């Protein structure tokens, strides 16, 4: 079981983990399993401002292209460059080396779910 302690989740299946004034963002295990093989990510550049719940980028799997949304607002501080050559990390380790971006100057989003609430939310989703 991956360590998701301290993470919060969006209903669009992103996770965010705040560490001091930096927030790391990725997609959930459920999201990666639904997408299947990730082959490309279209991501913002460092310095760009994102709104909480605003469009973060696009994630493409063999099956389809899907929008990514930022669970919190802030300024892009870092982008996972490893994903350019290894998009499969998002499938293999969505909460670890498959992280997507880091934000600073964070504007929090009170609508995010904790682990229990997110699990219940996923269980309520119709099976794909």
């Amino acid at each position, binding site marked *: 079981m991956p360590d998701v302690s301290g993470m919060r989740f969006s209903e669009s299946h992103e996770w965010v983990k705040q560490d001091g004034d930096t927030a790391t963002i990725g997609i959930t295990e459920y999201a990666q399993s639904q997408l*299947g093989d990730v082959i*490309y990510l279209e991501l913002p550049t460092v310095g760009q401002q994102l709104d909480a719940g605003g469009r973060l980028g696009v994630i493409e799997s063999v*099956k*389809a292209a899907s929008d990514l949304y930022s669970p919190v607002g802030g300024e892009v501080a870092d982008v996972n460059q490893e994903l*350019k050559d290894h998009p499969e990390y998002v499938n293999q380790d969505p909460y670890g080396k498959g992280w997507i971006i880091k934000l600073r100057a964070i504007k929090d989003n009170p609508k995010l779910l904790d682990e229990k609430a997110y699990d219940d939310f996923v269980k309520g989703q119709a099976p794909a």
Partner: protein
Amino acid sequence: MVVTAERTPLYEEHVRLGAQMTNFGGWLMPLQYTSIREEHRAVREAVGLFDLSHMGEIRLKDDAVAQRLLTRDLTALRTGRVQYALLCNDDGGIIDDVLVYAVADGGYLLVVNAGNQDSDFDWIRSHSPDGPVFNVGREWALVGVQGPRAVGLVQRLTPSPLDGIKYYAFIEGRVADVACVISRTGYTGEDGFELFCGNDDAGRLWRALLEEGQADGIRPAGLGARDTLRLEAGMRLYGNDMDDKTNPLEAGLEWTLSLDKDFIGRDAIVRARQSGLDRRLVGLKMLDRSIPRHGYRVLRDGRPLGVVSSGNVSFTLGYNIAMAYVPPALTEPQTRLEVDVRGSAAPAEVVSLPFYKRPHPK
């Protein structure tokens, strides 16, 4: 209205293997078991196992009707051989693409696309109201064994010598003690077989191939990998790359036409050739990392002039590829075009099809 997807006789096997299922052409089929990338690689490098039981089979015993409905001259097709051909409508539009098997007890077996099997049957029946035509797709299971190790694997399970079966030929025999039609055909660009057997025997055949194939690195492969494999091999997918508004010349399938015989659609196709085509199917290689997909617009210097019919990553080649319809003047290899990917003009160039050819064809 409740729409219920049909299940193949291998449905329980897919569930047991943990497959993600999807509705394809009215059939509940495995999309992937573990990973499309891994399943794709297994077929290119080892061997993959496919459930193709959703495909339709139509038995057509009347030679004259077959000659009238199929685009290819079948008189030269010897018993035990297979041909790729088309069914066209009066306007020359493609109703379906099919494999024609010349079977021993006379006439033909057509293997047709899953979603078209009932409409194909109705079409054929309407041209042969009282003739010997039978819709037998739901009586047959079909299992694909594809990849460089496929022939060796199947050979270990059958007393029939397989070396003598040429590409696009078939025999009757037993595989894992199951009575089969053993056909050297496929939709992946690799060597291998498609095995037809009765529904009741399908599970036994499937499990025997999986077990014996362990030593070869076999993987069950779903429709996801089937699609990325056929795209690399430049094989058209009915419904994506062609439909009843597409004529065979546009789709680059002139090699399936015997224009010196009379068949339904022939005159319209000849007229289209004389008046010139508006579009033709080409291969595109993406020059950046954008992924082209069905329905995306093709541009030239920013102006829209075509459309992507199929596109995805090519796991084997390491870049992204598409098939697209563009004006005939822009079909020369190395012609630079763009694909509109979410509002950005992604650079692409025309390449010849297929994108991928296996290294040592038999």
